């Protein structure tokens, strides 16, 4: 019941927002933040009550806050939700990130009421996906995230938003249909004919039909791979991000991508263990290719937001590497595979926090200069030191520096995966070098050197009259910015800071005190490692 309340609370508030046309914008925004806070409290309470590290890790038993109501009896689909070590971190991530985005949007002036409603609705969809223990329920929420995100991009995006939104919708919709087909395969393949994930994981369907199992896994895999996204299904991502509003991008990268990887670990691995083992090497290879491809293509970008979008491909590649390696049961001991899975789950959280922060920071750029082009910005550390500091911190977090959550994730993925897939892992490790390079070069181009701020070439969206000459003369040792320069690039506002900084603080806390999260994840990872080895 508590979980149900937690899942639907944002949607209820969203409905209320829609139903009250007279609400002023600031009130709506505050309502959003209030609802997100309440949500965070609820999830925090669940975390508090969650029995950490007990014998039952979840997935097949020992699920907390479980609720199971029959929904469509003939196909045995139900409203079955619950929390375990896999879902709890992601639920918490969702609550945190939506709160941050809510704070970020406090100054939203473009149809704030609907804006808040769309995001709150999206929050329910995300929470629901993570909480779902029924394939159909999972799919329902999964699909709703697409719808909600479509409206967010189409309604509040910029640039060619409609086109990107359409591309996003179509692409991910294809994925969700493949997913649906796969789910039906699971339903029909099982002895008992049910959509219940727990039951299916206890008694995996299609165990003795490798071809059917492989095809079903293919369908599910494609569906999730598009959402994740991994190479070569990733091309919707940069477009969607480029034209999405900052808040939407933060959610898209921070939460929505996790739906895909979460699906792998929650559905594909426990329910199709035999097929997963058989095709684990393919998963590993896809993961490694995504790692390198994402990193290299990101390196070549000239647009900050696209660059960050591509690093998401890279980071999700690590997740896939870990999960794939966890399926190579013959080549590695359970311990290593558990560590790989733990790392993969940790990576989801870490990436959510850091990429969320990065996208919000690019939102700062957009709000100041209406462009993401790397060559139109420079030396921002002078006019906007706080921005620069946060950007640098996020970048170092994203490149996997120890002390940040991402290090915990990547370290575990690599160490866990090496035994099972040595060559692939060694190749994938290169990814962290390339990401390091690209983030450092971004820092260098954006923050250091002479200060450059985009000229206002769109008179309708004029910010402030820019000083005629904005470049600082090259060279020299001057540390003083020219006085007029800060006009075009005001530093972070309070609401922006309050939105972004907590994410980074969390990323650091989770990087230094990983037990907080690992206590929850590890038992579940052990269970999944055991299940997939069946």
């Amino acid at each position, binding site marked *: 019941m508590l979980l149900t309340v937690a899942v639907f609370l944002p949607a209820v508030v969203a409905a209320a927002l829609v139903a009250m046309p007279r609400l002023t914008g600031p009130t709506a925004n505050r309502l959003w933040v209030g609802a997100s806070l309440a949500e965070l409290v609820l999830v925090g309470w669940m975390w508090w009550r969650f029995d950490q590290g007990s014998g039952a890790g979840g997935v097949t038993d020992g699920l907390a806050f479980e609720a199971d109501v029959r929904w469509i009896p003939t196909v045995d689909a139900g409203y079955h939700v619950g929390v375990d070590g896999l879902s709890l971190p992601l639920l918490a991530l969702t609550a945190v990130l939506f709160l941050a985005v809510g704070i970020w949007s406090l100054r939203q002036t473009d149809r704030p009421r609907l804006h808040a409603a769309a995001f709150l609705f999206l929050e329910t969809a995300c929470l629901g996906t993570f909480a779902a223990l029924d394939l159909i329920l999972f799919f329902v929420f999964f699909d709703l995230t697409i719808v909600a995100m479509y409206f967010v991009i189409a309604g509040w995006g910029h640039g060619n938003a409609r086109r990107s939104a359409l591309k996003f919708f179509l692409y991910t919709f294809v994925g969700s249909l493949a997913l649906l087909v796969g789910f039906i395969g699971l339903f029909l393949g099982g002895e008992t004919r049910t959509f219940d994930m727990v039951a299916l994981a206890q008694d995996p369907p299609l165990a003795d039909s490798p071809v059917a199992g492989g095809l079903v896994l293919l369908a599910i895999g494609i569906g999730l791979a598009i959402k994740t996204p991994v190479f070569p299904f990733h091309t919707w991502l940069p477009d969607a991000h480029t034209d999405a509003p900052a808040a939407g991008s933060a959610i898209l990268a921070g939460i929505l991508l996790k739906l895909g990887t979460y699906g792998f670990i929650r559905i594909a691995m426990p329910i199709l263990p035999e097929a997963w083992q058989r095709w684990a090497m393919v998963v590993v290879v896809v993961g490694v290719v995504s790692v390198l491809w994402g990193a290299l293509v990101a390196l*070549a970008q000239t647009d900050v937001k696209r660059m960050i979008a591509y690093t998401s491909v890279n980071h999700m590649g690590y997740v896939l590497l870990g999960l794939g390696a966890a399926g190579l049961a013959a080549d590695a001991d359970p311990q290593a595979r558990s560590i790989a899975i733990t790392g993969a789950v940790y990576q989801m959280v870490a990436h959510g926090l850091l990429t969320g922060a990065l996208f919000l920071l690019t939102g700062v750029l957009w709000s100041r200069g209406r462009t993401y082009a790397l060559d139109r910005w420079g030396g921002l550390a002078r006019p906007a030191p706080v921005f620069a500091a946060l950007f640098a911190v996020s970048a170092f977090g994203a490149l996997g*520096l120890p002390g940040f959550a991402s290090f915990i994730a990547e*370290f*575990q993925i690599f*160490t866990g995966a090496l035994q099972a897939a040595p060559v692939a892992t060694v190749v994938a490790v290169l990814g962290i*070098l390339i990401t390091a390079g690209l983030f450092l070069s971004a*820092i260098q181009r954006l923050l250091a050197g002479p200060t450059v701020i985009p000229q206002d070439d769109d008179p309708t969206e004029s910010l402030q009259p820019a000083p005629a000459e904005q470049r600082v003369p090259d060279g020299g040792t001057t540390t003083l910015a020219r006085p007029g320069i800060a006009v075009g690039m005001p530093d972070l506002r309070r609401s922006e800071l309050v939105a972004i900084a907590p994410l980074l603080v969390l990323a650091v806390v989770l990087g230094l005190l*990983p037990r907080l999260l690992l206590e929850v994840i590890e038992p579940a990872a052990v269970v999944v490692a055991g299940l997939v080895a069946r």
Partner: protein
Amino acid sequence: MSAAAGVLITLISTPAAVGAALLVGGRRADRLASLVAVVTAVLGLVGATVVLAQRPEASLPFLGLVDGGDLRFAVDGLSAVLVGLVATMSFLVTCFAVADLPHDAARARFFGFFLLFVAAMLATVTAVTLPALLIGWEVMGATSYALIGYRWQDAGKLTAGTRAFLTTRAGDLGLYVAAGAALAGTGGLVLADLPTSDGGWQHVAAAGILVAALGKSAQLPFSAWLSGAMQGPSAVSALLHSATMVAAGGYLLLRVQPLLEATGWAAAAAAWIGALTALVLGAIAVAQRDLKQLLAASTAAQIGFVVLAAGVGAVAGGSAQLLAHAAVKAGLFVAAGAWLTSLGTKQLVGLRGAARRHRGVGAAATVAALALGGIPPLSLWASKEEVLAGVDGAALRVVGFAASALSAVYAARMLTVLLAPPTGAEPLDDEEHGTRRVPVAVSTIAIVLAVFAAGLGALALPPVADSLSAVLLSQEGSAPALSELLLGGLLALVAFGATLVVIRTRPAVLPVLERSALGSWAGLGHLLSARPALSLARALERVDDQVIDRVVMGTATAVRSGAAQLAGADGRVVDGAVRGVAGAFRRAGALARRPQTGLLHQYYVQAAAGLGVLLALLLAVR
């Protein structure tokens, strides 16, 4: 956890916490920063003394599921030496930095990163498990980036930091792999278990660690980043080249020496790489015209001896070399920094007679330089001989001696310039505006370091060496015989003298050397260029945008143009957006609507034909 363990944790975490606090404080904390940093450094000294006496072991929970997943730190013999060294050097360099930094500098940022850097090094040298090691190791790299790029406003400074970080991180990848290999081979992540790991994993681990250490220590082929690292403030160079960062690689190899030995090949590889680095970078050092560049190259060369020591199993000698080199190099960098602040240049041309202008610093620098050249009875002479005593193969020994002689050569080269009487026409202030004075504090620090540089020669004297070995808990190494010591010293003196003679008689040699490839670091910088990666990246981006995206969107160019035509014909197409896929679909859609002619008799024919086809299907497929 025992009290001593608590001290150990505090020792590592205090500078980290204080550093982080300073960073968060930003410019508001600038005023306090110096004081806080010095106090922290003093506390570090105290803490180091405690842990040296107690040798505690401490553990913090970190990763689960596996032995060694925790953050475990311990102080054994080897790390005790390093902890003492790091604490001392960081204290001295902190003091130097306080005196040397300009008044309006962003001190909080400087000392923040500086303290983080020190904390990372302390973590590195006391780490017992791989996660702990990797954390210290990588944070050190990142903070070195921030310190080198401390003056980010200047073009190129941050680039140098980036280069340093990327190069060392390229090496660090080895450590990640090694961690995986450790898990696979030993089922745990404890560093000391590595030699017992099974199968090929041992080799993987050794290779990974070797690469990581070479990268950090700027050994071949990773040396070039060290050149760029000179962009950082002098204090940074002083610390980075003495007790930290560069030393970390050598330290790590000494630490895992049993593993290297167990694999067979790794020890030999380390020995050879160390020796060759000493030789090549020594030659490069000779050819430099910039004092700091010279010192940088010499650092890599001197650490080469440490790596050599790790390769041949001379742990005691290697440790002694680390200690001695730290003192020598810190002293020299303090001197170089002082001159830079005072005279505004670090070019050798401009520094002519610098030792005479500021006598305190000059004296200290002279002593340190002599030590660097391996002139007996100063410190590096002794430690180098101890390392070389452990060398077995003749070829390796020859290379070692040659490298050793080269160090005398560059020391002589340096001293001829520094000690020459100033002409008054030296080009000064080519880098910054000199103050023309050296604070007393700086001179004092330089002199203290010079005393260490001279005194640590005692390390090589048999009784001291024995006790050092005891400290290190290792077997008595092959301590050099007295004859060897003397022979080595003689070689150094000869080389030193010969250099003086050559420079005096044929000064034209120097410009030739400077213009040679050696002057520009023998092209090592190109070795690890990012250019191929970048061009690959661009190519992939094109593939991504033009192939994958289009393939996925289901159209080739032809379809696109067809769609565009259709879209042109039909101006009301709401979404030119979906032109990609839409193109194909639109054509199919137009095709699908073609039967809908509006003419009934055509409907009739089509319906009849359709039914006929279905009938045929029904009869054909049974």
